[in-house]
């Protein structure tokens, strides 16, 4: 009886996730790539707070919800919870997806924050209830860090609201572009005499912290490796594939338009943070033995490139085309990393199932002899992740480096180290797990089942499609980024 109900819940949830995918595809079909905001739904919500129900999508939003809609069914198929409590698992999963959709489409801070927080709770429970042996600590760390970030965000936006009287992202972006936001924060508010001058900086720091924790940017990343490592495969896929994108999304949607002056003023330290994140996360990944942890650190590394691009384009000098390239690359990288990292977590999850809970770098070896399909598909995902031309990962990193090299050559040169290290540890995985002598105990390790092949196939195919024909995404992203670049102060 419970088994049937769990099946029912799973079928229902998977059906819904496909429905969402179909709807999102419908939206992208109707999307007109002109750089403007579309599919707007706008209603008064809470008049007393200036909170509106304000939905819309532009290129960035569309790419984000596409990613959400693709990864969710993928994650749902990749891992099944035990039958007891499966209902709750699926309910939480759907809640997580709705939180993500909401956060990627909202254009009013209250509305956005509502969903930003909403997505936190299901993620916490998914780790806490279905995670590995250290789940209690991992989920707690995840929660405390992200909540800390949310507090900073909330405070910063309360202050911004006090100064400007609006929560509307578009209106705030307008104010940020003209410098009116900084002026309003300086002249209208203050704690005593001294703090008035630093108010814009404080607000900037609050928003920055909130977003940096989510991405994460070092040194705010301590929650990530345990959370990704302890979460079940499907949840790791959602965390890295979609939730970490919320942070990058926030950088592009909020921080970049609202605080151009502050970003410019702090550009060098911020670049150093991004480079540090890129290099050190790759370095740390080399030292890891746990496959999940390696991929977790590589996630930090990959998202570091996105932030590198964001921090580079804030400068006044430099040609628009380079800025365009860097930002295009950042959004591309968001999407690509979502695909490849979640695919990697999915494969590691399957490997863990086969290896009876083992997932160390040195626990396996020579698997290509007995599991050629597994090796091939995971190899493709690994190569996509390290940016092999012809696969999706290449496009984003190439564009980012093209832009960064032209704008801040030293930053590109330094982060190229990260690129090298990434290639190194990803290839190490390939070498240690799939080639070399096959230990006797794994002689019976089964290859991917037909079902698993079908689950992985669409994602792998997508990697090729985007790698060969990036125009599918570029057509969506480019007009929006073009609009940003031309309106940049």
């Amino acid at each position, binding site marked *: 009886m419970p088994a049937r109900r769990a099946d029912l819940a799973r079928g229902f949830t998977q059906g819904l996730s496909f429905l969402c995918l179909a709807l999102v595809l419908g939206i992208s079909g109707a999307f007109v790539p002109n750089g403007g905001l579309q599919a707007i739904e706008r209603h*008064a919500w809470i008049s007393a707070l200036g909170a509106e129900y304000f939905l819309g999508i532009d290129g960035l939003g569309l790419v984000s919800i596409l990613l959400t809609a693709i990864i969710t069914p993928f994650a749902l198929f990749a891992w099944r919870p035990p039958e007891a409590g499966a209902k709750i698992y699926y309910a939480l999963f759907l809640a997580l997806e709705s939180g993500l959709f909401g956060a990627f489409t909202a254009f009013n801070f209250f509305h956005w924050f*509502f969903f930003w927080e909403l997505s936190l709770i299901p993620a916490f429970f998914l780790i806490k209830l279905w995670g590995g042996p250290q789940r209690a600590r991992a989920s707690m760390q995840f929660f405390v860090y992200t909540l800390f970030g949310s507090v900073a965000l909330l405070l910063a936006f309360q202050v911004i609201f006090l100064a400007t009287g609006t929560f509307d992202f578009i209106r705030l972006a307008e104010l940020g572009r003209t410098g009116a936001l900084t002026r309003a924060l300086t002249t209208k508010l203050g704690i005593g005499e001294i703090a008035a001058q630093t108010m814009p900086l404080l607000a900037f720091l609050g928003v920055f912290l909130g977003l940096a924790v989510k991405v994460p940017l070092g040194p705010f990343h301590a929650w990530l490796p345990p959370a990704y490592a302890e979460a079940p495969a499907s949840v790791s896929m959602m965390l890295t594939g979609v939730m970490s994108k919320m942070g990058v999304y926030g950088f592009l949607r909020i921080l970049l338009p609202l605080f151009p002056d502050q970003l410019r003023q702090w550009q060098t330290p911020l670049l150093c943070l991004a480079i540090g994140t890129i290099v050190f996360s790759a370095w740390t990944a080399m030292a890891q033995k746990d496959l999940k942890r390696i991929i977790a650190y590589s996630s930090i590394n990959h998202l570091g490139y996105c932030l590198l691009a964001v921090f580079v384009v804030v400068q006044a000098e430099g040609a628009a085309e380079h800025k365009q390239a860097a930002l295009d690359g950042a959004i591309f990288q968001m999407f690509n990393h979502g695909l490849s990292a979640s695919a990697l977590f999915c494969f590691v999850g399957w490997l863990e199932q086969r290896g009876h809970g083992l997932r160390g770098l040195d626990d396996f070896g020579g698997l290509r002899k007995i599991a050629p399909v597994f090796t091939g598909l995971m190899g493709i995902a690994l190569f996509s992740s390290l940016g092999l031309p012809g696969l999706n990962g290449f496009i984003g990193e190439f564009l980012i480096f093209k832009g960064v090299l032209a704008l801040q050559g030293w930053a590109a040169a330094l982060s190229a180290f990260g690129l090298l290290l990434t290639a190194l540890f990803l290839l190490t995985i390939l070498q240690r797990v799939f080639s070399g002598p096959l230990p006797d105990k794994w002689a019976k390790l089964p290859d991917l089942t037909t079902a698993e092949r079908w689950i992985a196939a669409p994602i792998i195919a997508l990697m090729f499609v985007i790698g060969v024909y990036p125009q599918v995404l570029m057509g969506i992203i480019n007009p929006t980024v073009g609009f940003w670049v031309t309106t940049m102060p």
Partner: protein
Amino acid sequence: MNYGELLKLLAPESILALTLLLVLGADATFLSGRAPGLRRAVAASLTVAGCMGAIYWIFFFPIHGHLFSGVLVVDPLTQVTKQVLLLLTAATALLTLETAFTPHVGEYFGLQLLATLGFLFMVSSEDILTIFVALELASLSLYMLASFAKGNLASAEAGLKYFLYGGLASAFLLFGFSLLYGLTGETLLAKIAAKITTTPRDPLLVVAISMVLTGLGFKIAAVPFQLWAPDVYEGAPTPSAALIASGSKLASFFLLEKMMTIGLSSAVGSGAFHALAAGWVPMLAMLAGLSLIVGNLTALAQTSVKRLLAYSAIAHAGYALLGVIANSSQGFVALLFYVMTYGFTVLGAFGVVAVVERQTGSDRLEAFAGLSRRSPVLAGVLFVCLLSLAGIPPLAGFFGKFYLFAAILRAGAPSLGILWLVILAIALSAVSLFYYLQVLKQAFVREAPLELPFSVKPSTQLVLILLALCVILFGCAPDLLVSKLLLALKAAAPGLVF
């Protein structure tokens, strides 16, 4: 002066008083000797009918006016608040059906109605004499309600503690009031305020304010006047505790807000970190900060769910105080929204506790193990209520807190000096999630020792589901209530427009 006018304005209260006599009379005459279940059902339906009658009266006969220049104030704002109070009492009465701790059925429901009468009078008076009498009416009824389970030592202890602390608090309040009267020679709040402006700031006024705050701080269970709360919440019969936590809180906060913003409007002071100035705001800021810290941190260590709710109530008093400290119309509305939705939420939580306690004989955390399998409805209601208390979207608690923070910062602008209190409140609301999760973890993750399903009365289920729906509804569409409150506040006496 016209007694007819008085009767018209007091119609809802009169309906309630008549209901009370009916409940007492019915139970003493033709129901005496019948089965307790029947008596409870009749008394509860009479109580609910009376409350609904009063609500309908307020709804369909919106009469407003001031009698005796403020001894009785009936304006849109008091009427909305009264309707919510009546709803809370009706829900409490229905939840009482789940319990069977006393043979004195009529008296129990009667005292609930009497306490509600006290709440209604507290809400609609702006005269310190009437305020005191109304407060005593409510308090005395609540003391009785707390000690009603005579077979239970804990209940007796709860009643006695509540009574002793409450008596002391009343004494302080009365002393404060008499000092206010001595300083100004007036009993009406507005006139007191006018007199205080003309006299130079007097240390005696500080004494008076701190005494009044002591008395009212006891009612809202703010630290350091909270000592009674844990024992009373734990020992008192669950419906009594629910009424103390919901209706009494709402009425007391309404009273506190009026007392401060009307009566002491010229002794506000400042709670800003860099510029503390004497007045009631810094005192309340202190109470709020202490309540937030003590309530949230102590709740972490609790193993009894009722005690946990008590400490969480102390913490929530701290949040709600932010609305009073804001000293603005936005702050007033934020406060009312917060306390009203808090009332619904905490009633839901107590309703679940009542059922669990009746079926397992305990309110320890372990008693909630496996609740999601033993009664999905109860578990769902508990889930919604506790997450709302923790301030998670899309529930009412999230918006309530958001609005409070916005209101207090906005009222302080352009100076952000009160930011320290807001930061404290937000940080501690993050802490609060942990103890609510403790309960939810038991309910959803732990296996029950025996998986017998709980039997829950349909009426209880209905009330609990309605309460949970309210919490969700006001979380998703808070404007339903907020815009109503704002309009009511605007339409209310000009004395209330800051």
